[in-house]
């Protein structure tokens, strides 16, 4: 598309040498977006905004935080009590982490429902899974920084997962710790990496967007845009819609930050870390509970660890596991039912992960773990082959225009 004619002479002068304005015009204004996107398409831009919020609050926290075992806990308490608005910045960071995961999980399930991962968007999807992995590493290391009991024991249990690797496992764990237990060297490197990884996420997000803009957004009908009548410019239509969604999000977020800031937290993390006493019931942050349930569902240490990592890695190959030709679950009545079973299954896994591995929790955890893998490895390929999809509409405009034509 030709470079737009800008009215402002300075803008024209700059754009001729550094075409950032053309770029923005092209990617925001001209960028054709399907006109039927629902609110499920709000979560991508929302995630991007929360990432900015996390980096902003994080950099400010780092100005008063001390990454040393003797001072970390107190420095966070100092931020909470003595630093001006420290409580606000920390509560935004703490709950921003939870908000980030809520948004990303909705964003991922949106993709699973509408088949957004299908050709030609496989790499877009894979980059998304990479972002999820980076987020998990970042959040895990961030949670260690306040150096409370859950920080310390969460770090101990999770780093020990690597000791399950045959032969070199123990050396790997010593290497991760920089010592013989989770200690000051561990806290230091976790802080360094916690500062670094969010910027790696920014990089992955940029690639994610480059891949997105190649073919544009998919849409609730899952059919391709057939022409200009099917699309509208991103700006101002979707910028306005995204801004509205952001407003709703901020109301909810402020509600949590101001009225229930420890809603997602674990009280034990307000006890300073004690390497000699394990709390009776260790739980990870809520967003890791389903994986924790999968880890514990399998009685063997190595296999448990493999299953846990496998539960995320399987997402990488979803574009090839799903054999259906139709993207959207809207036209796949059977798949649609199983999709909701998967959603319930993930909540069950989360619930089991939050409880001690005793009694019927063990059985439920094992059944739910089995179903999780069954859904991806068996159901997706088989259902795609045998399910008969409903007829697809002619185009994005067709279902909207037809009734109107009928009336006329």
């Amino acid at each position: 598309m030709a470079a737009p004619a800008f009215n402002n002479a300075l803008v024209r002068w700059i754009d001729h040498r550094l075409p950032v304005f053309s770029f923005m015009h092209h990617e925001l204004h001209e960028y054709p977006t399907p006109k039927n996107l629902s609110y499920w398409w709000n979560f991508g831009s929302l995630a991007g905004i929360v990432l900015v919020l996390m980096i902003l609050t994080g950099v400010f926290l780092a100005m008063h935080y001390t990454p040393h075992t003797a001072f970390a806990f107190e420095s966070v308490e100092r931020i909470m009590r003595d630093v001006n608005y420290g409580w606000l910045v920390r509560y935004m960071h703490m709950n921003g982490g939870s908000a980030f995961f809520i948004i990303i999980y909705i964003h991922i399930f949106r993709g699973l429902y509408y088949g957004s991962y299908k050709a030609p968007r496989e790499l877009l999807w894979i980059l998304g899974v990479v972002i999820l992995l980076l987020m998990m590493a970042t959040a895990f290391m961030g949670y260690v920084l306040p150096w409370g009991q859950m920080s310390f024991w969460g770090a101990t249990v999770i780093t020990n997962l690597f000791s399950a690797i045959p032969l070199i496992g123990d050396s790997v764990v010593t290497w991760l710790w920089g010592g013989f237990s989770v200690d000051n060297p561990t806290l230091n490197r976790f802080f360094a990496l916690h500062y670094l990884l969010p910027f790696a996420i920014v990089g992955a997000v940029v690639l994610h967007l480059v891949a997105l803009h190649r073919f544009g957004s998919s849409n609730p009908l899952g059919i391709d845009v057939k022409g200009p009548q099917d699309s509208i410019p991103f700006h101002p239509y979707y910028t306005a819609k995204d801004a509205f969604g952001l407003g709703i999000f901020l109301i909810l977020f402020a509600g949590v930050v101001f009225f229930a800031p420890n809603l997602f937290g674990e009280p034990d993390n307000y006890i300073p870390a004690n390497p000699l006493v394990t709390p009776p019931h260790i739980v990870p942050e809520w967003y890791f509970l389903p994986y924790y349930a999968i880890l514990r569902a399998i009685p063997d240490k190595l296999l448990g660890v493999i299953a846990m990592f496998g539960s995320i890695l399987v997402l990488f190959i979803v574009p090839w596991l799903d054999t259906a030709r139709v993207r959207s679950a809207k036209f796949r009545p059977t798949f649609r039912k199983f999709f909701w079973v998967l959603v319930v299954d993930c909540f069950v896994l989360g619930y089991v992960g939050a409880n001690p591995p005793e009694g019927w929790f063990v059985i439920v955890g094992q059944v739910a773990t089995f179903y999780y893998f069954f859904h991806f490895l068996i159901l997706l390929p088989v259902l795609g082959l045998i399910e008969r999809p409903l007829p697809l509409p002619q185009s994005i405009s067709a279902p909207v225009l037809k009734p109107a034509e009928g009336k006329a």
Partner: protein
Amino acid sequence: MAEAATATKGHAEGETRRDFIYLAAMGMSAVGAAAVAWPFISFMNPSADVLALSTTEVDLKPVLEGMAITVTWRGKPVFVRRRTKAEVDTAAAVKLTDLPDPETDAARVKKPEWLVLVGVCTHLGCVPLGQKTADPRGDYGGWFCPCHGSHYDTSGRIRKGPAPNNLAVPPYAFLDDTTIRIG
């Protein structure tokens, strides 16, 4: 240019030489990359001061029969338990075939009365309960790990639960009858 040259020449010999130089250069740069990576990987391993702090001396005099103390060695808890006669006998009587990680009690102690163990569950690293009198000691009278339910016996051997191995015995020596040095 180079491609055109080989294409027109199409000489098998020339191509192999070029391929060889190409592969050798790639190989050398891989070696170079590994040489650069090595210091960085090593950087993250325990430093000299961390390694130097690796011995702890323990005075055993105040520990009476049936009591246990926890000391710190390399940032980890070490359990020292003065076992009762009954505990020693139970530990010695267990058949090796009943053990997931077979080891005799005799191989795990220097003096049967004193059991010295790294107090870190071999599953995922929690500290098992059983040092205090009020603690649960599991089904085998030793230690119980609350994290995922591993039971250890009076020799610190794994008997039930997800942990794969016995509680480790750290390197230690009796300096005299009532002092040990761990590490």
